[in-house]
């Protein structure tokens, strides 16, 4: 730490800081809550665009979920979903205060690899955090859970018992 005093430069720097932050806040206000609020409980209409799956690179969908349809992975994914995702997307994934519903055709049709890419990268500009902070195995477990959800992918209804158990056990 340098040990010198003096007020004028500090005041000037503070003013510059305040101006910069003010400008950034102004930009944020113009942009509004875009991703966060636009989703809300608005339902599935137009969700594909908001989810941003169109930006998934061509090679990503080829990746296969190493857990497949393992009931344990689905249950663990349900636990992780409640822990990390439900805060925005709602406990049932049907939309929350900040995140859109995950019951959209585009999401249902997405491959596990595409979902993994999207979960890893997020969509920062729209408010969706990147989840690379979670180990890859846990991201795959979340995807196993998402793809088992009732009303979603083929075979979901058969796994509904597992899903319900996982959901209620960790609430």
């Amino acid at each position, binding site marked *: *730490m*340098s*040990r*010198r*005093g*003096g007020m004028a*430069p*500090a005041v000037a*720097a*503070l003013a510059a*800081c305040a101006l910069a*932050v003010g400008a*950034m806040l102004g930009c*944020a206000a113009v942009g509004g*809550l875009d*991703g*966060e*609020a636009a989703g*809300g*409980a608005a339902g599935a209409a137009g969700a594909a665009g908001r989810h941003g799956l169109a930006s998934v690179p061509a090679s990503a969908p080829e990746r296969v979920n190493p857990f497949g349809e393992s*009931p*344990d*992975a689905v*249950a*663990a*994914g349900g*636990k*992780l979903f409640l*822990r*990390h995702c439900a*805060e*925005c997307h709602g406990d049932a994934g049907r939309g929350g*205060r*900040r995140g859109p519903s995950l019951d959209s055709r585009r999401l249902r049709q997405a491959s596990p690899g595409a979902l993994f890419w999207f979960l*890893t*990268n*997020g*969509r*920062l*500009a*729209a*408010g*969706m*955090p*990147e989840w*690379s*902070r979670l*180990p*890859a*195995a*846990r991201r795959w*477990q979340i995807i196993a859970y998402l793809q088992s959800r009732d009303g979603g992918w083929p075979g979901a209804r058969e796994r509904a018992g597992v899903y319900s158990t*996982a959901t209620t*056990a*960790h609430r």
Partner: protein
Amino acid sequence: MFHGVSRRTHRCGGRRRFAWAFGLLAAVLSWPMAGARAQEGPYFVTYGRGLEEPGNLEITLAPVLGEQRGGGDFLAAALELEYGIKAWWTTELYVDGQATAGDGAVLTGFRWEHRVRPLLLEHWIDPVLYVEFEDITEADKTLLEVVGHDVAADHAVPNRIAQGARLRELETKLILSSSLGDWDLSENLIAEKNLAGPPWEFGYAVGLSRPLALAARPGACTLCPENFIAGIEMYGGLGDGRGAGLRDTSHYLAPVLAWDLPGGPALRISPAFGLNAASHRILLRCGISYELSDFGLRRRRRARGGDAE
């Protein structure tokens, strides 16, 4: 090892200020809103790529207990309020204080930082830009960064003298973060400058960590390995613009362990070992974090006339 940190601190006026700080913490914690899982990384000094989720406020109290050669041992603490403005932009306010054995307790100032991710997609190495304004005194002992020629002897100065030297500083960091398999590797390059004049001071921090279990168990658990992250961090000074290098600098090596409690809070602990004679022999750090979701968003939505819930 640590002698009488709390022995005489009770008699000091600083205690009242600490009471105010903790009162403020209690008030914020009792704010009526949903709690969320704290997303704090395992490190105390090193920053990783993780930013706060938009609209979430994370409150952290991170004390550090230090052994002081030639002076009283100290307990310093930072109250950290971290808020996600956007998914790519996080701001954080620190309020620092310390209590030194035989020398009383003082509030030492505040820091206000911003972290921005310039790249919106993951890369093999992810940069985060960091800028912070500090208004602290030389009595600050939180050791949230070690730069320039910061050495342990700086902290032996009595509070009544050190409190008189105010430091208004600009700190910048280039935060680089990578995933090596399931390991997290984060490197910070630090440049700090007293706004009153030169020189720039430099420092570094490096951290490596990994969850104890990669996949989650199907059932709820508290003590299972998936809730723990273990790692190690190293940090120190690199001299200044007048003499960059390792001469008269201090360095620390610190194992870290983080525990995410299923109910929401996260706990961290880290003993840091000084690597040379200019360093404190040992620092003991711990931290508790709690996250509040939707902080401020409801009010903003109400103001727009939208649905609040």
